[in-house]
């Protein structure tokens, strides 16, 4: 029988190896530290292995940078960041170095974090929500989860880039542009208005990202400025041109660079990331509409402070830092966005902010996302 041939010693050896690997950090943490007060030991399942103590906070890792992975202390400022660590991590690092304030950041998608905040409600551990579009900030503000910001902060940024009620502030600007392939399209081929891309000469040549938040903000602007009928006609017209629907801006820009499509509707900065990664120019260029129409929309990445948060002062300090010259220069140089506080110039490849006549609407007007989604749903885009 199998049983006879089975080597207990062998099994023991392997299970010992396995469990000691899992136990190691716990032991290390227990030896090296004394503030392991947080008991995560209660498992979903009471009969879970006693040795499987899930007390593995990051500090347990002997190699981890002690600064960035320190256990949550009562004094840490907690930021929910819908902007990725690749983009804003260094900025937050600088803030930490300069002020000595310990910041813990939870990075995830902007929309997912907004949904998380709404689910957590008053029990959220977050102090500050840093989002990459005004819509998500609007959704959280609408639930009454933000405090009103002080004028020192709001005054740093032109009114059109912040919440009307002062519940969130824009930190950097993101322009809607048309990205086109240099080899197949010249700038003069582009229509005078973004509304004219419905012309059949663009059939089979366009790419867009209908599920993307920035695109939807654009559609909302289109509805607010020109009315629902125009917006519907435009969407159906672009659909009739067989526009390829991609999952995000990055994919649209990639498709334009590859020549899969000739032009696409995106935010301006993705192109510069591709240039950076390619180490030089790529086969695509941006075109800015500056006519005050929906095509000239500039959206923002911004932030709001959570009502009832423990570390509101520190959160405000972080906002101030991001709006300082240093912070704004970071957005200009590293993320290729528009600095919104006055005095700092944008990257020279960008159309200057003061040359762009943005449409006459308040970003707070863009919170009618429901209407836009209804429209996108009706025409079958999402």
């Amino acid at each position, binding site marked *: 029988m199998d049983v006879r041939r089975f080597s207990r010693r062998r099994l023991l050896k392997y299970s010992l190896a396995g469990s000691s690997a899992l136990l190691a950090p716990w032991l290390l943490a227990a030896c090296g530290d004394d503030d392991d007060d947080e008991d995560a030991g209660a498992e*979903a399942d009471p009969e879970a292995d006693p040795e499987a103590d899930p007390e593995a906070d990051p500090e347990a890792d002997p190699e981890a940078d002690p600064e960035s992975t320190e256990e949550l202390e009562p004094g840490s400022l907690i930021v929910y960041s819908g902007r990725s*660590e690749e983009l804003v991590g260094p900025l937050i690092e600088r803030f930490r170095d300069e002020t000595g304030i310990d910041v813990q950041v939870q990075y995830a998608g902007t929309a997912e*974090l907004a949904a998380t905040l709404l689910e957590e409600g008053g029990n959220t551990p977050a102090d500050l929500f840093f989002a990459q579009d005004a819509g998500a900030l609007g959704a959280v503000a609408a639930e009454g989860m933000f405090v009103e910001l002080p004028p020192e902060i709001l005054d740093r940024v032109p009114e059109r880039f912040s919440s009307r009620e002062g519940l969130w502030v824009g930190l950097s600007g993101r322009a809607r542009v048309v990205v086109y392939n240099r080899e197949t399209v010249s700038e003069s081929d582009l229509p005078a208005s973004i509304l004219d891309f419905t012309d059949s000469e663009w059939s089979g040549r366009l790419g867009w990202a209908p599920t993307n938040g920035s695109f939807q903000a654009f559609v909302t602007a289109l509805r607010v400025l020109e009315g629902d009928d125009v917006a519907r006609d435009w969407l159906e017209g672009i659909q009739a041109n067989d526009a390829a629907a*991609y999952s995000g801006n990055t994919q649209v820009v990639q498709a334009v660079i*590859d020549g899969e499509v000739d032009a696409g509707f995106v935010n301006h900065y993705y192109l510069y990331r591709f240039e950076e990664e390619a*180490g030089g120019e790529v086969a695509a260029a941006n075109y800015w509409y500056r006519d005050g129409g929906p095509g000239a929309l500039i959206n923002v990445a911004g932030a709001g402070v959570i009502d009832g948060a423990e570390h509101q002062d520190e959160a405000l300090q972080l906002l101030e830092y991001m709006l300082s010259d240093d912070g704004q220069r970071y957005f200009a140089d590293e993320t290729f966005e528009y600095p919104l506080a006055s005095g700092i110039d944008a990257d020279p490849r960008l159309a200057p902010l003061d040359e762009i006549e943005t449409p006459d609407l308040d970003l707070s007007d863009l919170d009618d*996302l429901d209407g836009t*989604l209804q429209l996108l749903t009706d025409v079958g885009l999402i």
Partner: protein
Amino acid sequence: MLDLLWRDRTLTLLRNTVLLTAIVTTASVLISLPFAWLVQRTDLPGRRFWGIAGVLPLAIPSYVGGYAIIAALGPRGMLQGWLEPFGVERLPEIYGLTGASITLTALIYPYVLITLNAALRGIDPAYEEAARSMGYGPWRTFLFVDIPLLRPAIAAGGLLVALYTIGEFGAVSLLRFDTFTRAIYTQYTNAFDRSLAAGLALLLISLTVIVLIVEAITRGRARYYRVSAGGGRPVARLELGRWTAPALGFCALVVLLSLVMPLGVIVYWLARGLSAGEPLRLVWDAAWQSFYVSGLAALVAIVVAVPIAVLAVRFPGRMSATVERASYAGYALPGIVVALSLVFFGANYAPWIYRTIGMLVLAYTVRFLPQAVGTVRTSLLQISPRVEEAARSLGYSGPRTWLWITAPLARKGLLSGAALVFLTVIKELPATLLLRPIGFDTLATRIWGAASEGFWARAAAPALILIAVSAFAMIFIEGVGREREG
């Protein structure tokens, strides 16, 4: 609300989801059956290598795999670049059903392969020997003896693939194929509309129930363990002879498409980034955390799965069947639905566990328990209750019997289950992003952070480390599983 659900688009979503699920499941079984048989039953050269390489695609996150496949096979992808000198301007569209099916099959067929490997190792060679001695050739033995014996394993693996496909988001959205899950994500992430998303999720659950019923029908009531006494011994491997080359070709093709190609694209991203001056960032702390939390989740999932599987196999009945099926609930649901409901639960009712590793492991267990239950159940089916009865009659207590008799006999199933959970958890994203302790980084969150912003070069290094860690874990598990074979 009902109006919104009851529209043409819902029907389209339903049709798309069913179609994709059927294609991916069938294709996965068709690839895995011969692959597993070649590795387990023949003298295929390098079969140990193929055994590991064959399951590794599971370690490639679908959001990376999907992008890599577009980069390689897209209309103007790398393949087109190579073919350009021959006048190929554009490859046929990969987007839509075709691309989504190819990508998902390539990435998740190993669910069936792993289950089949375990089952083939567990089959009593006496069955095959009997068939051969009665004059069956290798083909007829495989078709009429092995395949019927493998039925529970095929069903269990197929079920994992089918339900995974239903709940998959990364690849289907990149390949622009509209399924329920994609629609649910869109509702959550754009509208913050949780009611419509919940409605769609309920529809998805009903779809899951239908799949589970189909699987239950294929299970039947047959016995899969040997009835009489007999020695456990290695199987006689079939000599492939002149079939060696085609067999190798088949394995190579599968591994090329599902593993080498995505790996190649990732290495290309890395090389291009490095040559453009990107620093190479080896995120060992994140790697260790990934390994740790995935290992923990695999352990917990097995510990939870065993009683469920024992109930289902040894005490079949309505009650135990319900318990077992209920464990599948979290699996087919899109990750974001499970994650957000746990956010709600944790933040409001269980603050002591919220944002701890414990919460993360709980989330993984809820999501991936069926992977462990399915494989453990399959291996228990191959153990005769007589063995346990014998142990009991010799004075072993129930738990002692289990620990020293059943568990060792079922260890291949336990290990396969652990491997499945490990490989799935290590790349899991939605729950990891939302529920991890603040500041806790894993390879998956690193990859996502870079890839979501289009920084492919920066995503490449952690992606390669993720695959390496998974390979290491697979080799370890494989080593334990092979213990008895020479």
